[in-house]
């Protein structure tokens, strides 16, 4: 595995970890969403990085990442729509702590 692949992979894993932590710690919904996007970038980086092992560029990961980005964008869009609706309805950017008996 080439050194750039290692760098890509490590960066990807790092981004994933940061994203995960962000996802866990933030309660603001937009931040959560951003954390998710960071995680997503990390995974894409990993994919691209891992694909460089045989010297030449493997087209499959590229196609995957492309698809992945499309998926992530649409997910983000949906999330943003929902969060905006929530803001309109409740005036809050955080989820309520609903208690049960």
């Amino acid at each position, binding site marked *: 595995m080439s050194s750039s692949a290692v760098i890509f*992979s490590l960066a*990807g894993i790092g981004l*994933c970890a940061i*994203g995960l932590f962000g*996802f866990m710690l933030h309660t603001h*919904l937009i931040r*959560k969403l951003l954390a*998710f996007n960071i*995680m*997503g970038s990390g*995974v894409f980086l*990993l*994919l691209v*990085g*891992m*694909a460089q*092992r*045989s010297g030449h560029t*493997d*087209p*499959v*990961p590229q*196609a*995957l990442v492309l*698809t*992945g980005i499309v*998926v992530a964008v*649409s*997910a983000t869009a*949906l*999330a943003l729509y*929902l*969060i905006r*609706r*929530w803001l309109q*309805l*409740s005036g809050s950017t955080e*989820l*309520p702590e*609903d208690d049960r*008996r």
Partner: protein
Amino acid sequence: MMLNAPIPLLMITPLAAAVICMLLSERSRLLVSFAAVLIQLLASLSLLLLLLQQGPITHPLGSWEAPLGIALRADGLAVLFVLMTSVVAGIAALYAALYLTPGPLRAHFWPLFWFMWAALNGIWLAADIFNLYVGLELLSLAAVGLVAFSGSKEALVAAIRYLLAALLGSLAYLLGVALLYGAHGTLSLSDLSQQMQPGVASSIALAAMAMGLLLKSALFPLHTWLPPAHGGAMTPVSALLSALVIKASLYILLRLWIELRIHELAPDASQLLGWMGALAIAWGGWMALRQTLLKRVVAYSTVAQIGYIMLMFPLLRADNAEASTLALQGGVLMVLSHALAKAGMFLAAGNLILCTGRPELSALAGTSQYRPLSIFGFGLAGVSLMGLPPSGGFSAKWLLLQSALASAQWWWIPVMLLGGLLSAAYVFRVFHYSFKEAENSDTFHRPGVGLEICALALSAASILLGFIATWPLHLLTLPDILPLAVLPEGSLEQSLELLQTPTYETLHGTSEQQP
């Protein structure tokens, strides 16, 4: 054309219907949807026929070969799930058409519904792990949309929670895909099963994929997003989510577990899944017992039922072919019967809520008197969920119990039985309320006959499954996805023979009665 190429039809029809539904007017939307449902049904049936005639089919979509093209594969298990989807989603569509009043809500429903169906078919038929990811993601987005579209505050919160959990799950899965591809350079499940290399990357990959999938299936303790989402959505949506959507991730997990032979190589991991399932049974059952809202009861029941399905994993043992076969049969049958029963139960619960006009359990007093049909539909589904005979749920439990005994993992037996009792407790709690004396006379609304019939049809199907279980189980042998190589001599052949040919006793018995 249709009979020859059911696989592309299964993919294209829902996608096309989704797009067309977005464009068309109210009335034509319904027509298109019904036509598409019909096509889906016919296509899945013809796929079944094709499978029975030709055996498993592989189909490269648009003639593009893998890895860049998308290969679809229809083996027995996949076709079984395709059929299940057609039946459940078809009836749910009918129910939705009757249930949803014309208006913007209905406008949102149909495209999302069709995207969901497309995603489901994509997952059932996918032959590689990345297509599975795409399917999963599409499914999640459609499902989140379905939860949210009623527009209420609660639904919105539930949808956001659901979305966040689903995204986390998807990413974990994608991470696994990346790691696996990095390690093996292939995405195809069949290639992976042959080339699987040990290593840290593979382990983490599989763990991340599995957990991501379990998060989407809402296995305890990752279940908390489910009750508000399933309990808060509109009735036909709840039915679809509980019956089909969560099964998609379980299906992928099962595929991974068997095709990558994790069940043989890492029994400890299987045990972990089993114990999480056991906890889910207990937890979900208990929480269902403590709910005051009818649909929440049903939603928590889903949490518990997923636990049952998970019990299949520790029972898939390399060292015991008989137990493994039984476990696979039991698990798949559990998925099928849960799909039918839970959809039926949600629809029946929706009918009951229509009757009383209130979502609380306590509002049910008197319903068994004035709306016996709705209660009856609920009860039939309940029979299957409780695992009482005769029902698909019972047959599944029977197989799992047999498997537990055959593999000497007796500790799952009390788990299953106590879980059954817990589910009886929460199902009968609903009856309990419905049998209460009502002070007033018939003040209930009357849900349409069509709605009642939809609920009853699904519930009755889950009962009927108990009688015809050999038939879906027969499909599991096309091909037998548990590899034959590891079996001790003859045992599976025997059980295969049992599937197809009358046993000695049958012949003996029939000849004996002629004195």
